[in-house]
């Protein structure tokens, strides 16, 4: 209930944060703290030092350019949900953010914190994967850009090195205009038992020009449902096509059951949610 003793330091610049991080191998960056602090209270995490990065100006901004959208790592969920410009160019992000947890969490939690914590049931993981986001990372060896596909390694593990800091997340533009996030929350935790982000572009004849589908929560890792997208490409969105795409897409996850939700159930739920997300886009 009370964390083991730790030091707290607030960084006001990226350099300060990276220096502090380099000076202590057991230090952790603190953003919204909504995943890290509960783990510390249960003493499952025992960092010696927390480096608060939420006052670093360049981590707190949302930039929209013609070819990309850049979200600073310390941008909070509520900022995203309330940003009108974002609502126009990437409604998917606001849609996903608004179903995360509750207002208190959305007030504190950050986009970068969610990415770096890499909970396999995080709503945003599906959004990052489906929209082909890029993670901007800075460390002693300079800047790296990591595509979403290369970010998630295992539950709670990313390719971010311990001495590196996530600066922000970039989404390429233009994004497909039809986009949605559909979530089936776990009745206990509210995390996604299955969450599906889907983006579609259609040509003038109503055939699929571009498709992207990703699933979070259901499988042991969030995943891109490439087979679903492949099945959709060039097709008119008939019921059969959507059904087949959902079947194929859900088949790509690796499912592990727990005492309440079996692997079989999770795969079924992924299938149903992909199907419903696509149906929503057909109507859009």
């Amino acid at each position, binding site marked *: *209930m009370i964390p083991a*003793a730790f030091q707290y330091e607030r960084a006001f610049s990226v350099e300060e944060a990276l220096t502090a991080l380099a000076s202590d191998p057991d230090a952790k960056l603190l953003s919204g703290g909504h995943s890290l602090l509960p783990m510390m209270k249960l003493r499952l995490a025992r960092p010696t030092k927390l480096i608060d990065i939420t006052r670093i100006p360049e981590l707190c901004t949302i930039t929209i350019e013609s070819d990309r959208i850049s979200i600073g790592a310390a941008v909070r969920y509520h900022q995203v949900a309330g940003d009108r410009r974002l609502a126009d160019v990437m409604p998917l992000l606001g849609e996903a953010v608004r179903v995360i947890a509750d207002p208190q969490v959305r007030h504190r939690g950050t986009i970068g914190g969610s990415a770096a914590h890499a909970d396999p049931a995080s709503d945003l993981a599906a959004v990052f994967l489906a929209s082909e986001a890029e993670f901007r990372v800075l460390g002693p060896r300079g800047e790296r850009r990591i595509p979403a596909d290369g970010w998630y390694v295992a539950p709670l593990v990313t390719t971010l090195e311990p001495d590196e800091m996530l600066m922000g997340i970039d989404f390429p533009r233009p994004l497909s205009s039809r986009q949605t996030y559909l979530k089936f929350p*776990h*009745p206990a*935790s509210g995390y996604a038992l299955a969450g599906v982000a889907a983006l579609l572009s259609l040509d003038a004849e109503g055939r699929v020009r571009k498709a992207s589908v990703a699933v979070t929560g259901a499988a042991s890792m969030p995943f891109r449902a490439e087979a679903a997208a492949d099945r959709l490409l060039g097709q008119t969105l008939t019921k059969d096509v959507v059904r087949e795409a959902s079947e194929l897409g859900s088949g790509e996850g690796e499912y592990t059951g727990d005492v*309440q*939700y079996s692997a079989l*159930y999770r795969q*079924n739920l992924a299938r*149903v949610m992909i199907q419903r997300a696509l149906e929503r886009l057909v109507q859009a």
Partner: protein
Amino acid sequence: MSQSVYGARVRRKEDPRLVTGHGQYTDDVQLPGLLYAAMLRSPHAHARILSIDARDAEAMPGVVKVYTGSQLKGLVAPIPTAWIPPESDLKMVEHPVLAYDRVRYAGDGVAMVVAESRALAEDALDAIRVDYEALPAVYDQVRAMATDAPQLHGDAPGNVALHWTVGTDTDEVFRAADVVVSQTIRQQRLIPNPMEPRSAAALYNGATGELTLWATSQNPHIHRVLVSGVLGIPEHRLRIVSTDVGGGFGSKIACYPDEVLVAYAARDLGVPVKWTETRSEHFTATSHGRDHVDEVQLAGTRDGKVLAVRVKAYANMGAYLSTAGPGVPTILFGLIVNGAYDIAHASAEVYGVFTNTTPVDAYRGAGRPEATFLIERIMDRYAAAIQMDPVEVRRRNLIRREQFPYANPFGLSYDSGDYHQALDKALAMLDYPAIRREQEALRRQGKYIGIGFSTYVEMCGLGPSQVAGAVGFQGGLWESAMVRVHPGGKVSVFTGASPHGQGEETTFAQIVAEKLGLPLEDIEVVHGDTNRIAMGWGTYGSRTTAVGGGALALAADRVVAKAKTIAAHMLEIPEEAVQFEEGRFHPEGSRDRSVSFQEVTLQAYLAWNLPAGVEPGLEASAFYDPTNFTYPFGTHIAVVSVDAETGETRLMRYIAVDDCGPTINPMIVEGQIHGGIAQGVGQALYEGAVYDDDAQLVTGSFLDYAMPKARFFPRIELDHTVTPSPHNPLGVKGVGETGTIASTPAVVNAVMDALAPLGVDDLAMPFTPARVWEAIQAAEGRKGGQS
């Protein structure tokens, strides 16, 4: 006083304090020099303790002392149980305050650290080294009765804690009956989770020998009796304070080792000590509820008349007997398995079984939800077996209005009611024929909705105390009240009941306001402090307003009677000629001359001019023992939709028509019903403790244990009928538990009704999306196999 507050939707007096953070909860206690305790709990469900080494922990700066079980053995008595059902062969096994040789559940206390801060105390827990020898563990009560099961207690062979039977012989009826339906039902274990966790703080006064124990208790006087016995502190030197308690649902009835340990340490160290459980501790170390495996059978005719019902129950008691634990699956369950139906023959046989799990005790409804669930489920099975509408089967068997007082097969005397009226009212709200038509139409589109009924009755407000004794409750079930009018005319009301969220600071003030003709704000209700209130039995079992309110009504009447005597003297008229109306005394038929209640009060205290033989002062006490239980009843209807693809159940409508007699504050009554329904729906759809094969609790946090949430509910549609109970002065019936008792079977019946066309005919609670979906898959598999 132009408008009576009695029966009005008065806002709760306690709420401004509570919602602005001014509540006085146990964890709010701050004292000079306060130390903080933390408990080391067993990670094993069953293990021998080989050694405990606390030297490193004790050497840590800020750590004052570490207590272990072997140090306290002989100094602190074991925790007793307070309910010994007669002829149950109850095995009163030892429950030490800290385990000294063996731990029997994951969460069993092993050591207590006292330190200068809570953080230091928790740090020190990490430094205590305990050497365990793990033993095989068992969490399931049926498996625990097998001959090769691990044994928990040397003096409880086969892990049987109790064996109890009640009722009439039903064998002959079952043999001769045309229709017999049977089902084995698991009523899963629930974790209470009140908003406020348990907490205790203790202060010992070395000069007077008085120990004050702040504790999250539903019944401070029961705590005083038990803690006094365990620690050997006489009752006149032991004060229990439970001013604001943030919900209990039964989990704060029991006397736990934790508060005893805190009190012991405060006396031992001569310094105040406080402990508050974490939510994680609450999941494993606070009593759980339900956990039955029941075999229920019903015998009936082909035309819908129930002839007999019988139940064989296996109740999980957990690792030790909790305070009221043994009474819950026996007295509070077995005596009412016929439910609201006129059934001539009924019997119940109950095994209480020890397992390597958290002890089980009362949880909102306590025994009555379990009984109600069985009868309401088996009535639906019976209806299906004879192809009759479940409403019609209920209608044919509900006790009729003219049968009251109704003697049930176990000797209970149901007080009053018109069960058919409540049923009809609820059906009218539903528009039953229309919803059945809609169900048919939706089924043709592959959509599944279901309608479920629960025509329940329950027993609450237990008493008289003679009956409490006869059923083995080690206490009385009367209640005390004192009404003290202060010289200026304001009133303090002292109740032995101990409300902890139910709103009686308001309801009781409404009773007194009505009796004394005073405004509500002139009345303060005092509870939860054994030094301020007279002996009383606390709040549980929906007894507070029926029994405590009864005591209060009597005490208030006594105050009015004395005031009337004084008023007559002041008005110089005979007492019989005095009329008391709207706070003033005047001669009957004339308002020209009158004295106010305040003037009479002042005279009572000045005592310058009192009638001969009348003592000064204006206050009165009452110790009220009810003549019998009360029996609230009603009809609940749930309409659900089931998404066959995801298995998700959604409540579309919920209708409840309840009868708790006259209502003192309808808003509070409705709040109780709303909350109760939500909790019962929690059991049907969401909640359930899950143990793994090592008897480890898998659902040990809100990440895995699903509590019902507001967004899961539609607007609940309420109405009521009013049938006063003849068993108490106010005619009221308890309403704290009816929602929980009625709603679980209503929702389960609705889901089963929705799933019927898919071929699902049995499913264990909670109806999680996965369970429902898997049941549908299995049924489709069976159909596939058949075709």
